[in-house]
Each structure stands twice: as C-alpha cells, then as structure tokens.
C-alpha cells in the first residue's frame, strides 16, 4: 500500500510539474513602501521583464504565492481579492514603443515591518495577456457606428462566443418600454397604484438608458467573460479608451474623447486560452527603501 501511495505521489508531482509555469527573469525597477496612518498604505514593487517587450503585452497581473520580509512578517494581504488583469497603459493609449521598453508589472503587498531591511522572498506567477499568440485575440470593426441595429460580425468575436450589437434610438425606446412594463408589473404587485405608481414609473424611466453623445448603448453577450477591453481608434490611428458599464442587461460604452465618429474603428481585445501566458518568478532579498 505504501509503495502504491509513493508511486501515486510521484506520478501526481510529475503531472503537477508538467503544468508548472515556465520561469521568467524579472528585475526590480522600483520599490515604494508607502507607510501611513491614513489611507493607501502599501508596499508596491515594480518589476521589469527584460525578455518581454511591453508592446507585446496588452495586460498583466501578478499572483503572489509567498511574500515575506526579513523580520518574518507575511506581506500578503489575507483579505485582498485576486487581482484583475490590468491594461498596459502604454499600449492602450497608443504610445509608441520607441525605443522598445521591457514589459513591466507591479505587485501590491502590505507594509513590511519598520525594522525589516529587505523582502526575504517574493514568489508567484505573472500572467500576461499577449495578443500576438492568438489570431483571435483582437477584433477590429471599421465604421462600427454604422452597424447600429445589427449584430456585429467578426471572425474573432465568433471564435470567442461573443455577440455585440449597438442599439439604435428606436431599439433603446423599445427597451425602455419593455422595462417600463416589467417595472409596472413589479410595482403593482407590491401594492402601488394610481398616481403614486405613475410617479414611480416616471422617475424610473427618467434615469433609465439616458445616453449622451459620447455614449453608445450595446447588447453584449460574452458568456465566457473573454472581453478584456474595448477601445475606439480614430481615422488618424489615435486610440480612445472606452469605459464599460452595465445597466439593466445592457452595456454603456462611453469615452471622454467625444462623440464616436462614423470613420472610427472599434477594437475589442479578448482573453483566450492561447493568449494568456503564465510565468513563474522568484526574488530574494529585495532591499527596502
């Protein structure tokens, strides 16, 4: 029995090793130990990945498995949620990578002890979104504004099971009416009636699906949560960041860059099983400032 158990352990550990992420070299670019009795207390360590070009990484996150200072204090926040992929600002703002810069990531930890002089161990995995690794990473839809009312057709969207359709003014009105009917029923079931019910419905509809000229309302189906980011690109190639916000099952696409123009492109960046790459890293004895 013991032999069987040992064999099982060996087989299991080999299987685990086969799934382990490849190692990547990292270099510490900056350490910021922000200590305060107020808000935003943290230890931030910025790492460069000299073997990776910043231009090839659309987003990144760091999953820490161990972070300990030389006083023995655990620097991982037990209450912290798993970090989200963070967009590469240089890339999403369209900043030219000239001269080429290494990819960089940052790690957020808790403050070390004041008496500590270094981070004894920092270990974990760096997850990179590298669009070039999958031809279905990005969908670019030229003149997307003119597609309103129809589902946007694109090979990469289809491959990722994503459906996007921008709503026309008539469709927004129809959505409003549909929601109004549902709300009316809901309020009536709660016992509201007459003028009170009418006032409540009016106030509900006033705030529903209000779209200004910088916003578009879309119906987006993304069952596998593949969409990483949506941006617009104007005729001159300038990238315009887009914020996404859900409301009653529809998605607001808004930008500070003004009203989307007819000659703009929409770029949808997606996470796929091929373009998400994990690398293991380990650092020892990182001096503290």
């Amino acid at each position, binding site marked *: 029995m013991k032999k069987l158990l040992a064999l099982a352990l060996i087989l299991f550990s080999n299987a685990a090793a086969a799934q382990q992420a490849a190692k990547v070299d990292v270099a510490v670019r900056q350490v910021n130990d*922000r200590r305060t*009795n*107020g808000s935003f207390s943290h230890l931030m360590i910025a790492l*460069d990945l000299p073997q990776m070009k910043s231009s090839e990484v659309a987003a990144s996150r760091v999953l820490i498995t161990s972070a300990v200072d030389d006083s023995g204090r655990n620097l991982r926040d037990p209450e912290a949620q798993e970090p989200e992929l963070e967009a590469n600002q240089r890339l999403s703002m369209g900043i030219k990578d000239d001269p080429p810069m290494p990819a960089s990531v940052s790690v957020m930890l808790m403050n070390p002890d004041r008496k500590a002089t270094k981070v004894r161990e920092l270990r974990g995995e760096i997850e990179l979104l590298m669009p070039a690794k999958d031809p279905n990473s990005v969908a670019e839809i030229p003149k997307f504004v003119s597609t309103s009312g129809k589902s946007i057709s694109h090979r990469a969207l289809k491959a990722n099971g994503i459906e996007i359709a921008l709503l026309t003014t008539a469709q927004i009105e129809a959505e409003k009416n549909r929601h109004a009917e549902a709300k009316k029923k809901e309020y009536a079931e709660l016992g509201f009636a007459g003028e009170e019910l009418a006032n409540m419905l009016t106030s509900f509809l006033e705030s529903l699906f209000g779209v200004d000229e910088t916003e578009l309302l879309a119906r987006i189906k993304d069952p596998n949560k593949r969409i990483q980011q949506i941006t617009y690109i104007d005729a001159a190639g300038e990238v315009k960041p887009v914020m996404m916000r859900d409301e009653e099952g529809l998605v607001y696409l808004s930008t500070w860059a003004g009203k989307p123009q007819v000659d703009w492109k929409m770029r949808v960046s997606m996470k796929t099983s091929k373009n998400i790459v994990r690398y293991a890293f380990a650092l020892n004895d990182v001096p503290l400032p």
Partner: protein
Amino acid sequence: MRPALGLCFAFLLAAGVEAQTGVVLELEDVVDNRVSSADPGGFQVQGGLELRVKVNGSGMDKVTAARVIVREAKDDKGTSLVSKPNVPDFYPREYNNGTLQVAVGQPARNATSVRMKGTIELYVPSRDPGASVKIANALATLDKPLSAKALKAAKLEITPLSREGYAAAAKARKITEKDIEQLRAEGKKQGAPEKEIELAVALAQAFEGMDDDVSDTAVILSGETSDFDRIYRIEVLGEDGEPIHMTSRGTSSRGESSLMTLNPAQPLPANATLQLMLLTDKTRVSVPFDLKVPLP
C-alpha cells in the same frame, strides 16, 4: 475615524484683544513615502515624510491663512531631515478645511519617531489697518504702476498690463539658448543626473509656454518677485465691493520678474477696484512648536 495623533501646544508671542491663544498644531495624517529605484533620475522616485496638520486655537476666526516653517527635524536615530528651513507660502484657512501639508526628508528606515521644531505663522490682516490697500479704477490705466500712498509707503510697485504690455513682458522672459546652457551647467555643477537636468530644461520650457496661454479677460499684473512675495492675495472687487470669483490664479516668476494672472469668472466692471492684502510685520503672528511624530 481618523484620530489625531498628537497635539503640540505652542505659546503665543504676541498679545492683544484679538490675540490668538492656545495655538495647537494637531497632527492628522503621517505619510512616510519610501522609494528606491533602479532609475534614480526617473519619474516619481523622490520619497519623503509628509504630514497633514491643522492649526487650532482661540481667535482663529481672525486668521486668514497659516503656514508651518520647519526649522529642525530629526528622527530618533539622529538623521536630520531638513537641510535648510523651507518657507512655504501662506495657505488660506478656507481651503481644505484649514489642513496644511508639511514635507521634510526621509527618516531612517528603522526610526520610530521624528521630532520637529519650528514656527507656525498666522496671517491676521485685522492686526494692521494698513494691510488692506484698495485702489479704485485700478485697471483704467494700464502699463503704469498702480498709484497709492500705502503702496508707496510699503515700497511696492505693481503694474497692471495691457495685452501689448503683456506680450512685451513675455517676450523679455523668453528662455534663450544661453539660459538653457546656464541651466545645464548649473545642474552639472550640482552633480544632478543628466536625466534630471533634461527634465528641468523641459519643465522650464513648458512653464514658459504657459506664458503664451492667457485669456482675453484675464487681469495681468507685473512686478518684482520680492514685491509679490510681500502680498498675500490680490482681489478684484465688483461694484458691490465684494471680491469677484476667479476661476484660476497663477504667478509665474523668472528671477526677479513675476507675472500674476487672474482669470475672472465674469466680465469685470470698467471701474473695478483692486484690493491688495499685504503681508506686513504686524499681520504676522509667529508661534513656536515642538512636535513629536510617531512614524507609521
């Protein structure tokens, strides 16, 4: 809740009917922002110790502005955090709920507290009847120094500029190749890294560019930097005698020459009055402080 970390009791040196007594420096937040970088000349790599403090006491309703001058700051390991006293501008009490920011150098990593000594300075214009100078029709004559007995007595010369006068002043302040060479030479002399020197050059050029960006409705005042340093604030008064709201204010200095720009939120009346609030010896109340700051 953000508890006050400590209180520093200071003693009033000046006395009077409206005197400020029991002046207290209340410590709100302490930020020890420690930074190290593989690129010391890069962006945002300068750390330091920053405090947010409030000045409290009786008679503070008469205090228009305050500032904290740190003359000495030492951590408990003996590291001095101030090379020379930094004298900030007076900060209006009405801003930021009266909270002041104090910045010194970086304490030792293993230090646990810092002791700071210096003075709290209060600006109390009601202590000097001559501190408020009002000049009627001040903008009727441009490109000539403002005329007022009180200004003459204070040896202050401030000139409201026309657009032409401003263009000429801005041209005279243009940064030349020689100026840039001097800036680079000075940087090298002080041992500043190349990146830092180039950043300083870029900043100087960017600030100069701001001189070109003046709206048509702006009030522009010219004078010597040392004169502007003796003025707390300049207001433009409307016909009701109340200050007209300014959407922005700025002073750009180059050596001894300064230009102040006030951008009013509404058109100015033709007979607008300028009010200069002067920083005279009588208007200032100095209170020593001695503060122990526990480090987070």
